[in-house]
């Protein structure tokens, strides 16, 4: 048997080197810059885009739909349920807000493509939404990034029978989905159960009724009107089981308290966890209501030392507000997108001090938690802090 019989050959190293050298010498000296995969990545995630407001429309007594078109080029592909991150300058505060896109993906890609969001006025925690509602007019210019978020129909995972459980302005992603399905661009069926206190609170009512069809069903569930002719009450197991077929996937989007109620109702209906998708929805109104929050700290004021590169700044902070908000108040920009602790764009490092992170908003990785990395948008100071944040 000839086990490595050729091993008398000792010239291999020289040969392979000569081979490589000759290849190098015969290659072209013309720079080749084509990188189509990065080009595609940039087309899908183009970064901040300059947008112009092209239409402002009332979609309820208290809500407005804002339409944006790109100043140049095309809008990127997105999926129903994803959000855009809108840059805002309100007074001295530079901030961002995530808004679910309520227009359909096909509308972004058509000629004269656009995206729409809906903002509601009058909520005590809706600082940015109230401002947008009151001030936005056609012709205004904004910068926004998109698309972001995981709140979309994933055909490899979800049932094509989708039940949208919406509350308040949480209806917006379902309007996107409804339009895409009605236009035949998304192969799924959607039943929207939209919980509101009164019929005057219902946003996008006419718009949703206009897209209802054999694949899009739309039901309002009103809790605060005795004489309401349709479904009355909350989004309970009774109303859910009345409209949901077997093996549906439930998409839930609304104010924080609604999630706990719906989780309980869906559990009672034996819906498996993999059939429930919950959208993240901002920082809690009152962090002291979060489990584990040391209530005695709530009124405290602290100082945060902010390290950016070799520069250090000291800023005031309140125990009741996320670190990101303290930074923005002080005029220090911090990169944010979801503002719910999930996306991690505001990933920063805690060098010293103590923070509180509500469980609902804790999107940190295990190693982050152990090593003191944190998400500034969902972390509250419990002492003076020293933090390192990205330079913007």
């Amino acid at each position, binding site marked *: *048997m*000839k*086990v*490595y*019989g*050729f*091993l008398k*050959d*000792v*010239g*291999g*190293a020289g*040969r*392979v*080197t000569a*081979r*490589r050298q000759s*290849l*190098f010498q015969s*290659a*072209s*000296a*013309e*720079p*080749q*810059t084509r*990188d*189509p*995969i*990065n080009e*595609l*990545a940039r087309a*899908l995630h183009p970064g901040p885009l300059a947008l112009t407001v092209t239409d402002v429309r009332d979609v309820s007594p208290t809500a407005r739909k804002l339409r944006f078109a790109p100043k140049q080029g095309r809008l990127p*592909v997105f*999926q129903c349920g994803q959000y855009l991150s809108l840059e805002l300058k309100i007074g001295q505060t530079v901030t961002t807000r995530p808004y679910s896109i309520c227009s359909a993906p096909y509308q972004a*890609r058509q000629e004269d493509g656009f995206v729409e969001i809906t903002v509601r006025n009058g909520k005590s925690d809706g600082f940015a939404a109230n401002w947008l509602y009151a001030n936005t007019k056609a012709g205004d210019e904004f910068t926004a990034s998109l698309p972001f978020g*995981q709140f979309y129909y994933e055909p*490899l*995972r979800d049932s094509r029978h989708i039940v949208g459980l919406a509350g308040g302005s949480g209806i917006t992603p379902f309007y996107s989905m409804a339009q895409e399905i009605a236009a035949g661009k998304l192969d799924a069926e959607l039943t929207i159960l939209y919980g509101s206190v009164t019929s005057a609170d219902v946003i996008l009512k006419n718009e949703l009724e206009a897209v209802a069809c054999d694949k899009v069903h739309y039901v309002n569930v009103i809790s605060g009107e005795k004489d309401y002719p349709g479904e009355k009450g909350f989004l309970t197991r009774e109303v859910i089981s009345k409209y949901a077929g077997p093996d549906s996937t439930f998409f839930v989007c609304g104010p924080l308290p609604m999630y706990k109620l719906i989780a309980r109702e869906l559990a009672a209906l034996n819906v*498996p*966890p*993999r059939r429930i998708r919950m959208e993240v929805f901002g920082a809690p109104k009152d962090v002291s209501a979060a489990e584990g929050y040391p209530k005695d700290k709530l009124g405290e004021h602290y100082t945060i030392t902010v390290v*950016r*590169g070799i*520069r250090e700044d000291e800023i005031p902070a309140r125990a009741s507000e996320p670190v990101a908000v303290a930074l923005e108040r002080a005029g220090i920009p911090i990169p944010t997108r979801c503002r719910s602790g*999930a996306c*991690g*764009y505001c*990933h920063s490092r805690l060098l010293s001090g103590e923070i509180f992170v509500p469980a609902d908003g*804790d*999107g940190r*990785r*295990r*190693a*982050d938690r*152990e*090593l003191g990395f944190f998400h500034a948008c969902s972390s509250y100071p419990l002492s003076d802090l020293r933090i390192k944040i*990205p*330079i*913007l």
Partner: protein
Amino acid sequence: MGFYKEKYDAIVVGGALSGMACAMTLASKGKDVLLLERHNLPGGIATSFVRGGMEIEATLHEMMSIGPEDQPLKIRAFFDEMGVKIHWLRVPEAYHMSVPSEKIEITLHAGFETMAREIDAQYPGTHDKVLKLMELCQSVYSSVNVLSVHPMSKPAMLLRHPEFVKTCGYSAKEVLDTFGLPKEVCDILSAYWIYVAAPLSNLPFTVYAVLMADYFGGGSYVCRDFSYEMAARMAVRCEELGVQIEYLQEADKILVEDGHVRGVRTKRGDEIRADFVACSAYPNRCYTSMIEPASAVPAAAIRSVNARRLSVTCFSVAMLLDRSPDELGIRDYSYFNSFTDMDTDKHWENLKTLGPYHYVTTICLNRANPDCTPPGMTSLSITTLPLPDGYLQVTEDEYLRLKRSIARDMIEQMSVYFGVRLLDHIVEIEIETPVTVAHYTGAWNGGIYGYRHSMDDHIVARLQMSEQENYIPGLAFCGAHAISGNGMSPAITNGRKAAKTLLDEMAKEAAQA
């Protein structure tokens, strides 16, 4: 006040494992180092993501060159030396391989004797030959470890490293064929080919030997807190050693004056001085669009990148399933499945397409890291490593449909194999594609493995030509595209080598001045 010092001893472009290994090594020698990372996290593709409150490994299958605590191989030793404490978990077996067309269905464990016995149990009479092959691999591996640190003369090399010298002109297939093993056994011993991504006919035996000796000798490892643990701990240690790390800062230009590196300009517009730069961007990008002025790039540098061929990128389906591995009938940690035969030349051609892919790797992370999911769940990923070729014409409007259709095919193939409909159990799913890699890292054409291993671009030739390839004084490269090639462990080695190149240059220039 600005955010940067006037000048640093060195700037490292890119905070993946390689860049951090480089920065750490430089800082440990007392150098003042700035590291710029375009993403908001350290680690590059050594990362994880959180879905529904659960963390999911993004990329790592297994680390080589770790070895047991009492017999550390070089990467564990490097981390120990640098004071980076990682929770290493040993992967229980080497791999399970399945090639139904050849009736191959076998699980191998680390340890030369162990694996030789496991093969012999199914293919009697092969034990001694397999062991002999592994001993040859071990000998070449030991030589490579010595020679990559201590260059020596040819006669000395021949005297002390004869097996390395004599095999180095041959491909893995050529050497394997001389052992007279049955085809099935050769195929079983080829399973790892995808971790160096070259068909055996064109894979230098030297590379094959390193791969086999390292994995079957030292075993393979993962981190307790996902590959991101490595990234985060390295980043923290870098900062402890005095490295200034800035995230979301992309180096746009590398500034060259009088034929020497003099600094970096970021996308944000900061111009930062340093006479030495370690660059993690592919040389293709660096030489064609980063060096300023472009005239500072010698023609030979452009020729070198045009001469070389990119290796593979990645297509991976990461899933959390709502059953435990036992309930799903997934017994092993790592599966190599060939749905056709084990002709790696044909597999290689298949990797140039958009699928369906014929050779996939499946990792059940729970088998090495039982706490990686909540109880009753499974973390499963199915991966293939395609070449960029198939993806070059894809448009953004077809992208989502395409990635789902490729992913669905991979999931269905593995469902048939496991005998369980995986689609019925998905709680979370993310599909990573070449475009995902490009989006998060900017890697040239989404490459994760740097340049192809081949007989034309042989690791030994790379080593011999390494000095002449320092085309611009003050510039070194770290990443999978540097000398040692792909994989997280080799990337770390590449970062250390880049640091050494720069330290040597610094010393030389200081002596001249």
